């Protein structure tokens, strides 16, 4: 199985370039020189498709196929990088020469003997663009559309999008790493617009992961997706403007863990900490969160959107404990930063494609379950906000300020969930917010698999998760000042 994986990657990526593992060894030697610490080649072939059903019509299908090689050379803290979208040796050699301009000395040196490095088997390598017939993909979209319109006469527009990617990668590095991965990724998005008394609102639901479209065909998943999107939109029709000010906030389980991703996740990526630009720099061993908080980054969960058999530097992914009972334990590392910080790579070296440089990135980041019952958490709040769904967030890792926007939220009054509110943006300080977590639920949930994280212009798929949480105070940025 694993050997098949390498064989398949070699067949897809190396044979067209008339390359083989043994020839790669020689190519890597040409990348090395006296002052070069690390060199690697990243081969990638990626194909993707998307289908869109909008306003009753299968609008248009689209398909992308791209392939290329990235050549990276590292000397001390310096990185030279060039890439080619042609998988032929002369082009690869030209990229190598360009990347090598970073080094002071010419010549060549011996790279380590390449050894095939085994990764996990977290997902099947079948091409999800091909395992389900196009007519069945369309039937699935139709089924969801029909279900959504059928749920409520106020539903005025339904859009269903189905997309899949199939990514074949091979990494060869001067430290002897030879590794390959074949990564499927699918997602399904449902958007609805509802209208009542001239007021329009939208609702959204989506899911996905590293499997194929048959996931969405199973049981009553299709109709549940439709229901969830319609439900969110209808709730907003009744929503009042969100309050403004400081108040206790209860975050629902699952996707609201965007908070963890923004508030501390990015600040624990090694590059920022090596450079000293994160609020968490030099704070390993210190208390940064309430003792109720244990947070991990785990790229080795089967079939999750943020999971990888190996990272983009060929390091098998792992479960890394970032924060244990409130104490900061470790940063997320790629090879480059690990070498400079004398740490061990944690399988977090990721890149958007062959045309981008790898850097430390999150995979699936989540908080472990705690002792409290979710109802008990809500009941403990006299007046506050209950936020159960979010549309995204952002962080400034240097001053620690993060923000995220609630797409479904309610007021909590006297321990009860009451009025839905809309337009609530939460803002806080990453170094402080986790200290203010006073209750952690026993209901850990991972998100549905639609997260994409952007950093320095590069997008990668990620996952998040958490149980229900109570944050004692957070700034809620609505329009209602209560004056």
């Amino acid at each position, binding site marked *: 199985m694993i050997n098949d994986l390498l064989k398949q990657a070699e067949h897809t990526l190396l044979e067209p370039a008339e390359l083989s593992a043994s020839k790669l060894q020689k190519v890597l030697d040409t990348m090395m020189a006296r002052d070069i610490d690390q060199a690697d080649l990243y081969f990638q072939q990626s194909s993707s*498709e998307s289908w869109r059903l909008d306003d009753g*019509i299968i609008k248009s299908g689209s398909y992308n196929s*791209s392939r290329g090689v990235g050549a990276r050379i590292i000397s001390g803290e310096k990185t030279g*990088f060039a*890439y*080619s979208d042609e998988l032929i040796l002369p082009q690869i050699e030209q990229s190598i020469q360009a990347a090598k301009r970073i080094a002071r000395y010419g010549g060549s040196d011996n790279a380590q003997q390449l050894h095939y490095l085994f990764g996990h088997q977290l997902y099947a390598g079948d091409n999800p663009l091909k395992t389900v017939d196009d007519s069945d993909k369309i039937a699935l979209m139709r089924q969801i559309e029909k279900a959504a319109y059928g749920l409520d006469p106020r539903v005025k527009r339904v859009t269903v999008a189905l997309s899949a990617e199939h990514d074949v990668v091979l990494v060869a590095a001067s430290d002897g790493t030879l590794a390959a991965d074949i990564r499927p990724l699918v997602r399904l998005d449902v958007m609805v617009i509802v209208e009542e008394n001239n007021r329009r609102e939208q609702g959204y639901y989506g899911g996905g992961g590293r499997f194929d479209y048959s996931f969405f065909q199973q049981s009553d998943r299709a109709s549940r997706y439709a229901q969830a999107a319609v439900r969110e939109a209808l709730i907003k029709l009744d929503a009042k403007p969100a309050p403004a000010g400081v108040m206790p906030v209860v975050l629902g389980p699952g996707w609201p863990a965007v908070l963890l991703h923004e508030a501390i996740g990015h600040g624990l990526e090694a590059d920022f900490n090596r450079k*000293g630009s994160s609020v968490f720099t030099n704070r390993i061993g210190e208390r940064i969160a309430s003792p109720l908080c244990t947070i991990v980054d785990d790229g080795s969960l089967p079939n999750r959107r943020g999971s990888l058999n190996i990272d983009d530097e060929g390091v098998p992914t792992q479960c890394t404990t970032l924060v244990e009972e409130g104490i900061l334990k470790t940063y997320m590392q790629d090879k480059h930063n690990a070498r400079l910080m004398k740490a061990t790579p944690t399988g977090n070296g990721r890149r958007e494609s062959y045309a981008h440089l790898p850097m430390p990135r999150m995979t699936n980041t989540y908080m472990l379950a705690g002792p409290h019952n979710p109802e008990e958490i809500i009941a403990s709040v006299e007046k506050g906000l209950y936020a159960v769904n979010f549309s995204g967030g952002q962080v400034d890792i240097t001053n620690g300020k993060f923000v995220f926007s609630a797409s479904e939220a309610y007021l909590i009054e006297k321990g009860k969930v009451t009025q839905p509110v809309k337009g609530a943006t939460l803002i806080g300080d990453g170094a402080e917010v986790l200290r203010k977590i006073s209750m952690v639920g026993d209901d850990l949930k991972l998100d549905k698999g639609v997260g994409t994280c952007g950093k320095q212009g590069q997008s990668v798929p990620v996952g998040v998760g958490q149980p229900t949480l109570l944050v004692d105070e957070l700034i809620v940025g609505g329009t209602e000042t209560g004056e």
Partner: protein
Amino acid sequence: MGVAQSIIQQEKDKTKAIAAQLIQLSQKNGATQAAASLLVNQGFDITVRMGDVETLTYHNSKAIGLSVYFGQKKATVSGTASDEQALKEMVEKACFIARHTQEDSCHGLADAALMASDIPDLDLYHPWDITPEQAINAAIAAEKQALMIDPRIKQSEGLDMASVQSCAVYANSHGFIGQKFATRHSHSCTLIAEQDNHMERDYDYSVARDPDDLLSIDRIANNAARKTIERLSPRKLTTCRVPVIFAARVAGGLINHFLSAISGDNLYKKSSFLLDQLNQVVFAPHITIDERPHLLKGLRSSAYDSEGVATKERAIVANGVLRHYLLNSYSARKLDQQTTANAGGARNVFISHSDHDLAALIKKMDKGLLVTDLMGQGISILTGDYSRGASGFWIEHGEIQYPVTELTIAANLKAMFANLVDVANDIDDNGNIHTGSILLESMTVAAG
């Protein structure tokens, strides 16, 4: 490997031939209409940090796109490979998908009569005769100088210099073929300052078609240093409702939400808060918004839009009244109108402004919030609800008092535009939207 080596000689004939071949092959495979696009980018970027080069990246990328129509069925395919076999596969894949989609009476190329015929030279191609080594040395020197400006500046997060040449081709089965050569150069600098164990970061940057129009890397580094120091020791506010100024560098984003709300795709889906507003008052009466697609050296200049339709210089908003939507041929047909040559968006947008500077605008506001940075995605184009994280400066007695952080600003975009008080003359020319700082009547500021 000089980057100033001309992309024109290498790509002029090759890119056109590929586009023509894709269209021909599509028609041979039964497509009734087809459109092909190519974008080739070549160049480099360097990052310098703490006295040495951190990254040197060479760019050499190619993106090929093909849309085919079988009657009113459509498919889109894209890729990077341009060999014969890859092109053949692209066409076959596109034709296969198109047969699986459904008829949509609004699909199809823009009308042949609308294709641009007169294609002026918009002066977009100005290669920069600089090697990566020269760029690295200039950036190292600029960084050194910036780090000496104030002892509170602890480090740089990077100075970037980038220079890219591009060749873009669009062709379709009406016989239209357009080719554009352009360059894009940039300088940027981000610094970190520290005071009382608290770090803040700020930046400045410059983008231009012509290297002679760039602000020098020294100047950028200096500006970044000044801005970073100004942000140190921010305070928090209490929740209030006050006038707000969007500094020029973030004001373009506000106008972008307006452009999004009048774009055809959001209009025909009825997912805009500005439905049925043509010829209605949407802005304060002193506001005029012009689109200048033929601007020489403009960052978005083009004689034709991304469907080949001839672009026109015109007012989108005149004296507060919405004069034009932004339509492509598809959304125009959906709305039973004509395309406005805005496939690919509005090009070089200019907001009318007063003749006073930011200091005068601050004086005029007297008391309120000056926003210099925004965070998060709390914007709904469907409802106009706007709620984002912000930081900036507190203004009282017509003057900047102190930096503020960890707050949110919220209001509805419709009211924000209608009650836009004034625009200063400190125009930011680094993006598609050329605007000075914008003063709004009031927003809710949440803080604590």
